[in-house]
């Protein structure tokens, strides 16, 4: 296997891992702060994919413009989601709270999925934007421009998030709660608000990923749960409470899928989950988990 093929695989892997990491980061944020396993996370991705598609298909707006227009709305959506469905559970005993949250988010996921399916009955069930930019080629290595742009956007969003977490009060509060909720509360952080913000941000990231997803591949009403699951893998692998870990996890899964997939497509998809179990065996706290 020649060096250029290897190079191609690595590039594909990295580009693929980017979008994974983005949405996974959102889920990690929510999970880290609220300790809630949000089974509806992928649904927001799906939903935003839909809206983006409609914006492009019906109104003919440039999809990349939509990437900037629509996801911010989902911040509000996520915040409201937490406000209405998650906050009421806050006072319950730990395992009861976890159970209730699982139920609530699961139910929400079912609703989103079914309504989306219903809405797309008769029209195209699977939304995908026919948008294309010619690729660059270096030697025999192809650099898919669209994915490069998307990867760029992913990096941009991640940088913004990092900045937000490091230099804003709310961001620091988010981190504090992630590290030690009780401690943060005692030192005067309003954890309720922070939970809301975390859900808003997380949902925003999922939405962004959804918009990008519908541009470079496609989104159907049923992608929610499976995607959520993949993101869960990534954050468990990367390590709870470690946002760098999530990025790393996304990258690893992207690369492993690309490289293993070359030799055997079947196991290319499985490797992500195998890696997860492997990581849990040697490092129960995840690669960069504390």
């Amino acid at each position, binding site marked *: 296997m020649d060096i250029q093929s290897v190079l191609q695989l690595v590039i594909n892997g990295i580009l693929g891992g980017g979008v994974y990491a983005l949405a996974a980061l959102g889920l990690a944020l929510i999970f880290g702060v609220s300790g809630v396993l949000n089974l509806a996370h992928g649904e927001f991705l799906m939903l935003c994919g839909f809206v983006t598609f409609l914006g492009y298909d019906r109104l003919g707006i440039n999809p990349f413009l939509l990437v900037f227009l629509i996801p911010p709305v989902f911040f509000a959506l996520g915040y409201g989601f937490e406000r209405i469905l998650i906050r009421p559970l806050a006072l319950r005993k730990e395992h009861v709270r976890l159970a209730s949250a699982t139920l609530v988010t699961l139910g929400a996921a079912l609703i989103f999925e079914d309504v989306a399916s219903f809405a797309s009955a008769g029209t195209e069930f699977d939304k995908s934007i026919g948008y294309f930019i010619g690729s660059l080629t270096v030697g025999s290595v192809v650099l898919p421009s669209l994915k490069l742009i998307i990867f760029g956007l992913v990096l941009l969003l991640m940088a913004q998030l990092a900045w937000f977490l490091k230099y804003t009060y709310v961001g620091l509060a988010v981190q504090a709660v992630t590290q030690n909720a*009780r401690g943060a509360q005692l030192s005067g952080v309003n954890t309720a608000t922070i939970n809301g913000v975390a859900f808003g941000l997380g949902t925003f990231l999922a939405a962004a990923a959804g918009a990008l997803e519908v541009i470079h591949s496609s989104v159907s009403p049923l992608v929610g749960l499976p995607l959520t699951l993949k993101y869960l893998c990534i954050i468990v692998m990367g390590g709870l409470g470690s946002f760098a870990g999530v990025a790393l996890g996304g990258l690893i899964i992207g690369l492993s899928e690309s490289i293993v997939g070359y030799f055997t497509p079947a196991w290319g998809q499985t490797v992500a989950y195998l890696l997860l179990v492997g990581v849990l065996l040697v490092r129960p706290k995840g690669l960069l988990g504390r």
Partner: protein
Amino acid sequence: MTDSLSRAPLKPAAARGAPLISVRGISKRFAGLRALNGIDFDVAQGSITSIIGPNGAGKTTLFNVIAGDEPPTSGTVMFDERPLIGLAPNEICRLGVSRTYQSVRPFFGLSVRNNVLVALLYGRRAVPARGELDERMAGILEFVHLAGKAERRAEQLTPLDRKRLELARALATEPRLLLLDELIAGLTPTETGEMMDTVRAINASGVTILLIEHVMKAVMGLSHTVIVLHHGEKIAEGEPQAIARDQAVIRAYLGDAATAVIPADT
């Protein structure tokens, strides 16, 4: 009750006997900060020893190390000539070390009876026979004044009763060493007196007691030996009266009072 407070501490039954537990060079670091730094001390068989010190001195961390909840960074703990470090908490419990928690942690969802039953069934070397079990249960609940409340859920208990329950649960494991973490803090004078009597009674029954306490009356009234921790170091050890006069100790407390913040060892 008040007179029980002023009563002079009883001499340790076997104070001169071999130490039941001896702590050597225990250090514990959390990411950077040193919670404990080279702590050494012995607790004599059958004695009551108090550990005092300002918040953040590392008292609870020390308990956690002894109980096996947190591995120390270095150092050893010998319990009755047996090394404890490296043993799991449940093993240590079965060797005869039991504890209560600074902020009470009963099994809130379980009945008082089941709280104690867990300790009775799992906390001791041998699973006791049915008949003996009920007898023990009744005895313990009687002893801590919870006899009437066996079927209540722990979450329905008053703060005092929760402390009693913690004590009952600890006793059920038939400990030889009992670690009491601020058992008395937050009680009314009457309750305090009563609780002190209970502790004395436990000790009289041959259980060695190591306790963390802020309430000075209790410390002075109960202990044969007092150990003072400050910023993870042992700064003094001795008879209660001696400690009360110790300059280092006084400085530690006053100096600390100025910079008091939220307890780090919660």
